[in-house]
């Protein structure tokens, strides 16, 4: 993917850029808002990673508002040292698609960037999701594996749906917490792990090939081959 990183802190920029490049992405970097806006408006990117506070008169929020005003719909991930909920809401309202508070683990950033970048640009109203022999029917809200119906509770359904929509991508615990439960706080305990392991019991138990994988130091991933 072609990624534009707008970040004024040289060290963070270097670290993020290196990490994203190692993950196989093509990264352009701008150190201030004005250059960032110029690049974002004149070239095609798959995703923009913006610091919320930028020098040069154009901060992250202004940059996104300007782009959205021009009809540019490139997904935007905000990086910010401002953790207050208001700030998150402000960022998302301005047209940001995701919000990551500094300091962050690189795995978290990478997972979010990939989730945003591979999001279908036109939300195709898929009615079925399928990974190997695991099938999810979004209309009847049923899940089958190898033709056998699985007993899945509503919340587990949403958890599995989120994993399946991002099949082959790492989904972090925080992402699940935010996207499946809409919680923006630290649950203190490894609640997400408990939920995933419960889901795993239903989806993978009794089948040869496990589909839900734990990615060390990052999160979970659903994929066909072990």
């Amino acid at each position, binding site marked *: 993917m072609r990624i534009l990183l707008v970040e004024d802190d040289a060290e963070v920029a270097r670290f993020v850029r290196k990490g994203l490049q190692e993950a196989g992405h093509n990264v352009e970097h701008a150190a201030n808002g004005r250059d960032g806006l110029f690049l974002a408006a004149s070239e095609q990117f798959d995703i923009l990673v913006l610091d919320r506070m930028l020098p040069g008169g154009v901060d992250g929020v202004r940059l996104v508002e300007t782009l959205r005003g021009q009809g540019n719909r490139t997904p935007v991930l905000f990086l910010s040292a401002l953790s207050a909920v208001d700030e998150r809401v402000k960022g998302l309202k301005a047209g940001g698609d995701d919000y990551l508070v500094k300091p962050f683990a690189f795995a978290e950033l990478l997972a979010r960037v990939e989730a945003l970048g591979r999001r279908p640009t036109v939300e195709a109203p898929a009615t079925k999701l399928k990974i190997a022999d695991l099938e999810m029917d979004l209309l009847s809200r049923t899940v089958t594996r190898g033709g056998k119906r699985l007993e899945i509770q509503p919340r587990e359904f949403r958890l599995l749906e989120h994993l399946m929509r991002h099949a082959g991508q790492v989904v972090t615990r925080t992402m699940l917490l935010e996207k499946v439960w809409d919680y923006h706080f630290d649950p*203190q305990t490894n609640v997400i792990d408990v939920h995933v392991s419960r889901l795993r019991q239903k989806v993978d138990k009794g089948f040869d090939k496990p589909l839900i994988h734990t990615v060390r130091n990052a999160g979970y991933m659903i994929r066909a081959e072990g």
Partner: protein
Amino acid sequence: MERWREAGSAAVAEAIAERLASDVEGNSIYLLMNPEGRRLAGNLDRWPQGVPAGTDWAFDTVQRDGLTTEARLNVMELGNGYRLAVGRDVTEKQRLRDLLAEGIAWSAFAALIFAVTGAAVLRRALEQRLLPAAQTAEAIAAGDLSHRVPLSARNDEFDRLGRSMNTMLDRIDRLMEGIRGVSDSIAHDLRTPIARARAKLEEAVVGPDDPETLRAAMERGITDLDNITRVFEALLRIAEAEAGARRAAFAQTDLTPVLADVAEFYGAVAESRGQVLETDLPPVLETVGDRDLLAQAAGNLIDNALKFTPEGGHVRLTARALPRERIEIVVEDSGPGLAPEDRARAGTRFFRADSSRATPGSGLGLSLVRAVARLHGGDLLLEDAPQELRGSPGLRATIRLGSA
């Protein structure tokens, strides 16, 4: 005049004598003079010189019964040299006027004195009443926040002013305390893990060049840093809630699904530990609040309950509406409970009961719950759980939410 025309001077003189006789007050003045300048009738000794004939009502000084008085006179020529002066003695009136003028002057003077002294007294009284408030304000401006405006028993507008000042000061004090608390916590409780992380990394640098050890040390360092970040986030969130900054996010919320979700969220944890998490929620529980914070507060209570309750234990989440738009959220457990002396301190930042040192946690959970409850105009109550939850006393944590 008519008499003169009809009957001449004698009749006039008679009429004058009659009138004078009937004049009780003795203010009337009459004088009839014949052409030779002799008095025919009347009570003036001499003809008033100052009044020319034919003038209407002029003032003059006249001689009357040997006394000089002020009079208003009308002088007319009756013809044939006869002259008549008719008038009224105004000395009384004059005196009355003088008296009045004097009276008014005196009373004006008295009023002025009263006004000035009254104003001074009132001002003194005001100053007296406002002095404590002013002194308090000065003391606070000088940096001592412990002062409060003393209140009298009168419960008047000054007391009301004093009371609102005190409420304001309490709030400021609490905020200051919060800031102080946060900086204290940062000083104490972030330094320790930071020092630990630093030590580990340093050790790794000077230690053996074994890549495995090095990697493990670095991973531990990152974990430590992550924990520091979590503590920091928690502190910020508490501070945010305490400062009331999050009130902007308040919205009409139905608490029942929020609590049900939280219970379901932590229910998985309970299940994995063989504990039972029961809920008893009303169909609808409307309130105005911050959904995320309320969920986190309830979550923290449940998380605590689950942590301190042994396997097979019970945790119960109940919520109900109280009168006057108040709401109660209760989390009870069958765990070991809290010693009374720990209860008061639970909820202060980083407090951990000695018995809980072995359990993971930052000691910030209840602080957040308390801050959230206060943000919503309520408080956190800790007490022994009822025996029906079996076994040991257990803890019952109640969040009361006021109509914030």
